[in-house]
């Protein structure tokens, strides 16, 4: 190793390089602190960038799943409410049918009154079957029309409709609708036909026919109750999946922050250290550069 000859200029160059280095470190920390982010460009940390990009995409999709779940809960909630509301008048119709069977001796006027009430219940049920959610008939399947049933109780939706589903997780789609035939029975044996048959049997006093419609009414009610239970189960499932998505959102947010954001205390500490180093370099420069032999010569 040769002894290096030091010149004023080389000292100035070294000093400037040192000051530049400590200042650029300060600038880097300043950028991190003011932006709050440790990764400002991919080269800051390629692996961190890869994680950050993947985490962001995953975060966005989980947020979307949660929103999909909200929408699904709206559908299921409306269906649940509608079915609950539909069951009460149906039970009343059953009561009337039973009364019609027992009161065989009742007069034609009384039977006509019961038949009228059944007709009212049928009209109400058709209205209930046309309940909409966000402008779509909830029992209409994928129909683009405004109603699921016409005023005569004929189903208007597509015969073989695909289920309406909401994606609430990777490869997880939950059905959120019920079609009219599923709830009210297949065309010809549906509750609307049953109710009109019941009214006709009451008017004609045909006890045997009334007995038959009572059985169909019971089957319809129990079918609807079963559907209601299924809707409730689906509602729970969607809620659980949504909770999972939300939990995932918060854990992903934390992970993204770990990758992308600065460790504030550590960065502030590093900034202080860099400041001290910079000031030391400046002070040393002020002392080293000044003295010259010229100061000591007469």
């Amino acid at each position, binding site marked *: 190793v040769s002894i*290096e*000859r*030091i*010149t*004023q*200029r*080389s000292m100035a*160059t*070294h000093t400037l*390089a040192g000051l530049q280095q400590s200042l650029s470190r300060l600038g880097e920390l300043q950028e991190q602190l003011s932006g709050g982010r440790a*990764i400002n*460009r*991919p*080269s*800051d*940390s*390629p*692996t961190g*960038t*890869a994680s*950050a*990009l*993947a985490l*962001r*995409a995953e975060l*966005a*999709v989980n*947020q*979307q799943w949660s*929103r*999909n779940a909200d*929408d699904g809960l709206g559908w299921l909630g409306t269906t649940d409410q509608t079915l609950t509301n539909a069951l009460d008048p149906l039970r009343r119709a059953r009561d009337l049918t039973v009364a019609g069977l027992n009161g065989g001796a009742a007069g034609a006027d009384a039977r006509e009154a019961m038949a009228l009430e059944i007709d009212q219940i049928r009209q109400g049920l058709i209205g209930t079957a046309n309940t909409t959610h*966000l*402008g*779509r008939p909830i029992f209409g399947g*994928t*129909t*683009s*029309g405004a109603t699921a049933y016409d005023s005569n109780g004929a189903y*208007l*939706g*597509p*015969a*073989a*409709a*695909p289920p*309406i*589903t*909401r*994606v609430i997780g*990777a490869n997880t*789609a939950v059905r959120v609708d019920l079609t009219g035939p599923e709830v009210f029975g297949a065309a010809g044996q549906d509750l609307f036909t049953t109710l009109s048959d019941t009214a006709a049997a009451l008017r004609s006093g045909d006890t045997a026919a009334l007995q038959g419609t009572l059985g169909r009414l019971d089957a319809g009610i129990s079918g609807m109750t079963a559907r209601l239970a299924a809707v409730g189960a689906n509602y729970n499932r969607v809620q659980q999946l949504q909770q999972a998505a939300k939990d995932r959102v918060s854990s992903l947010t934390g992970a993204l922050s770990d990758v*992308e954001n600065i460790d504030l205390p550590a960065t502030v500490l590093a900034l202080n250290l860099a400041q001290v180093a910079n000031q030391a370099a400046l002070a040393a420069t002020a002392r080293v550069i000044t003295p*010259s*032999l*010229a100061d000591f*010569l007469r």
Partner: protein
Amino acid sequence: VSDFAALSIGLTALTAARKGLDVTGQNIANANTDGYTRQRLVQQAVGAPITPALWSTYTGAGSGVQVTGIARLGDEFVTARARIENATLADLTQRQATLAGVENTLGEPSDTGLAGQLTDMWNAWHDVANAPGDLAARSVLLSRTTAVADGIRTVRQGLDALWSGGRQQLDTVVAQVNADAATVAELNQAILRHDNAGEPANELRDQRDSLLADLAARTGATVRYVADGTAEVYLGSSALVRGNTAAEVASTGAAQLSDMRSGAAAGPALVWAGSGGPVSVGGELGARLEGLTGTLPGYVDRLDAVTAALRDAVNAAHSAGYDLDGNPGTTMFAAGATSADIAVQITDPRRVAAAAHPPSGTDASLDGDNAAALGALGRADTGADSAYRQLVVDVGVAAQAANRRHDVQADIAQRADAAVDSAGGVNTDEEMVNLLSYQRAYQAAARVTTAVDEMLDTLINRTGMVGR
């Protein structure tokens, strides 16, 4: 020996000391001049004749001092090393700058970059799946898709701008190289003349060394000093400068990236203006050429691959669906669209094919299954998103490697520069001491002259006065 010889010795000493003060003054004056190499007076004692006469003897004490020249104290080997290290540094600096430009163009990771725009678009498909009949959701989807297409084109325009800027700078640097080479040839001529006339040409050599350092950094040129004092500059094995003649370098090839990609023009290259033969360059020009022909077109290819993946996946899925009126879906992007011209072809939100099922009779299906399938494309392992993420990460890795190599090389080059400065730089304290030495030498020489003068005075004016 003549008595007057001592006076003549005193005179040579006075002249030499004055010359020494001049040189020291020049050193101090140029203490901060870039590329200045310190100089030192070379003096020699004048003694007996080298070949004495056959029958005579020489009893003289010497005839004083003689200035034989002004030496330039730089170290040629250290300077050559600094040139090589700085050429490597210039190369790495340029590579770093190119990759930093690409990084800035991508603008990742952020919420607003292309990755974020893609995610927003896939989520918009989910929203359409949730409400297939909602024209607002469909409009949002179309504008998000347009944003993705715009985002891709913006990145492409950024890469195009980097390329055109680099292409123009290539011409500028080539022009500087030609000008520097011509000046080096002129300096060679001037130095040769000075040397032949026996005059010092130290300052001209300093100037030439500065130009040689610039040339080496710009082109990676190697320098060979010839015995006659001229310097030869080589690019590869061909001479850029030899003696007093300089060859000229010219740039050829495409002026626009689009011309190069369409095959209308070859990629940029450097050739000899005279023969048209290829020039082998390193340094800044080498890195620039690499950026123009390799790095930037490579990343454009990658962006095109991302575009193609997006285009084909969305078009295929969209064409499989049915729109709000029950018509089969059309293509979302033009077939064959590249990153330069990708655009959304569908403007009517009703034409968005959200349904996977055909209409039943006249009743268009309001299922959102096709939209949900499109929304799921964002998570595909081989989709545009993962291709783009890979592109960003690859740019990051390349840029990080370039940054690290640059930092290491900057340190090495700084040490090499320091070594040059250590050998040839001016130390003002040292010059102060020299100043003192020459001053004292001058004073002493003057004293010698005075002593001889007083001696002669005694001899001439006071002898032969006995008894007067």
